[in-house]
């Protein structure tokens, strides 16, 4: 186990260096002039193009340039992102908590609906409940998230006016960005309560509804399937027959006995899906204009903001390797039969 963890942690620098160097290599396709123009904020500086290229060493060979970038990263300087109009490090610090918050609310929904639909599907196997649950999950799985998102906007924002895009309303924005508002954790759902603004808390929660429900519909099919097959397996076991023979009411047999065991794979899947969701938020955040790290990455990519793209990829790679490791460890904790090698 310890050996496995160490080996996986050794993989971390390899992955991070591999991904960032690969992307860095691609940036060399852009001419030094194009890359230099990213440093230019004032049109008058255009005359100084050659100086900028020399100052930042944009004509050096790729290894030298990469080394320089890496050196800055180690010092905590990820460069300046023109698309976000702030240093990349600050953008990550500001946007990442919003995305984690979104993924967390989504995974709660995924587990809730996955367990509900999955167990209903198993208990009423081949009845209409089963067919509906399977239909909804396959349909949700096949409906592209950007189509679903637009339909949700049409219905719940345009037609009904229940929810709005964005991360919070204009009024909340003023409170959140006021000097008196203290940042404790970076997670608005927690910070608003700690600052004593329950209304802003509700507002932030309301803005999470559309993106999290959209993400949930797109990713809970797998959960339904896992819960269904796991529940079916448990329902066929001897202890369930014993419980039924004892004369326990059916709901007690299903939820207290079989359900408790059937839910184990759901927990492990949830931890894996939580990590995967961080990737899926890219599109949802763009559609709902949600101020998270995915939207930051998309805008950086669209505007060819190299520092932003590299910083975003670096962060995603680190997050994924660590996240995957944690979910592997959780896997063994929940099911001791599994051994990591």
């Amino acid at each position: 186990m310890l050996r496995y963890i160490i080996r996986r942690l050794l993989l971390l620098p390899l992955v991070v260096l591999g991904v960032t160097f690969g992307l860095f290599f691609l940036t060399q396709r852009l001419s030094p002039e194009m890359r230099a123009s990213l440093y230019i904020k004032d049109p008058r500086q255009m005359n100084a193009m050659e100086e900028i290229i020399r100052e930042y060493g944009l004509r050096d060979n790729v290894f030298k340039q990469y080394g320089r970038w890496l050196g800055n990263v180690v010092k905590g300087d990820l460069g300046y992102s023109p698309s976000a109009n702030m240093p990349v490090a600050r953008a990550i610090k500001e946007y990442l908590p919003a995305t984690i918050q979104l993924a967390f609310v989504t995974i709660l929904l995924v587990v809730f609906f996955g367990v509900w639909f999955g167990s209903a599907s198993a208990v009423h196997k081949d009845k209409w409940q089963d067919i509906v649950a399977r239909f909804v999950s396959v349909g949700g799985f096949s409906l592209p998230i950007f189509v679903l998102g637009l339909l949700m906007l049409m219905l719940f924002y345009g037609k009904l006016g229940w929810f709005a895009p964005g991360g919070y309303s204009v009024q909340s924005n003023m409170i959140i960005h006021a000097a008196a508002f203290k940042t404790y954790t970076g997670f608005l759902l927690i910070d608003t309560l700690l600052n004593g603004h329950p209304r802003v808390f509700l507002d932030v929660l309301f803005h999470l509804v559309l993106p999290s429900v959209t993400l949930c519909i797109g990713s809970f099919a797998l959960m339904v399937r896992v819960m269904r097959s796991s529940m079916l397996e448990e329902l066929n076991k001897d202890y369930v027959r014993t419980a039924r023979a004892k004369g326990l009411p059916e709901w007690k047999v299903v939820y207290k006995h079989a359900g408790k065991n059937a839910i184990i794979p759901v927990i492990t899947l949830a931890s894996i899906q939580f990590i995967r969701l961080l990737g899926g938020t890219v599109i949802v955040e763009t559609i709902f204009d949600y101020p998270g790290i995915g939207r930051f990455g998309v805008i950086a990519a669209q505007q060819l903001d190299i520092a932003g793209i590299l910083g975003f990829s670096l962060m995603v790679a680190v997050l994924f390797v660590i996240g995957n490791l944690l979910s592997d460890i959780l896997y063994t904790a929940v099911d001791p039969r599994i051994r990591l090698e």
Partner: protein
Amino acid sequence: MNERIWKRIYKNKTSLFGLILVALFALVALLAPVLAPVQNKNNPYQLPQKSYQIAPQPPSSQNWFGTTEQQYDLYYGVVWGTRLAFKIGITVTFFAFLIGLFVGGIAAYFGGKTDEILMRLTDIVFAVPSLVLAMVIAAMLGPDIKNMMIALTAVAWPSYARLVRGDILSVKQRDYVTAARTLGARGPRILLRHILPNSIYPSVVVASLDIGYIVLTAASLSFLGLGAQPGTADWGQLIAMARNWVLGIPGHTFFYWYTVVAPGGAIFLFVLGWNLLGDAFRDILDPRQG
């Protein structure tokens, strides 16, 4: 493809539905020049544009599915978008599989250090979610369809490399390989004549079923503006155009419904078809399922 597989697909209603959907789309893709005559001979994927008026127009006898922003014809877009979807899906899967076959084959055959290095290479690509990595690569290469396909191939090959490697490793131990070696066959001959033909088919099936997923990722990239450019018959790009019109006009939210429903419905049915077909094959290939 043997008779047993066809029988099972035929017996299962949902997988039959999936097969019919995919077959219909394939038909539309093949007959695209008949269904929607080419307007621009140099680039058939260029959408015909009726005028430069901005607001979309509802379905009519001239534009069966209506027009989207800037009067691009949606019917033409859906038909030629189907052809483009197959083109992207097949090309990307083919090249990704070829690379995967090459890398996986070398890793499995030589083993040891070579295997270790190549597999760590796949780890690197696997470590980042494929949509995010494809998005970043496509952005660096510059947004157009060819670069999008390169980006998709770059993120798709590692899973095939692992698949092929695993299959070859399991076949490598079989008796007939040992027999061939005993008879004096050399390395490359064993690999090409004995191991590959016996290990490749499951991977080929799995890879071809990924076409739906590849097309979905491609559409996502186009939607984000990092793939097909405006005016291309590409589903993702058409949906991106619909984005400006989802709120309709005051009092009529669903006024421009057709701008989302036409391309959105096409991609939904396409991906649904591949997913249903994929489920059927996964059940068939998995010997544990009865």
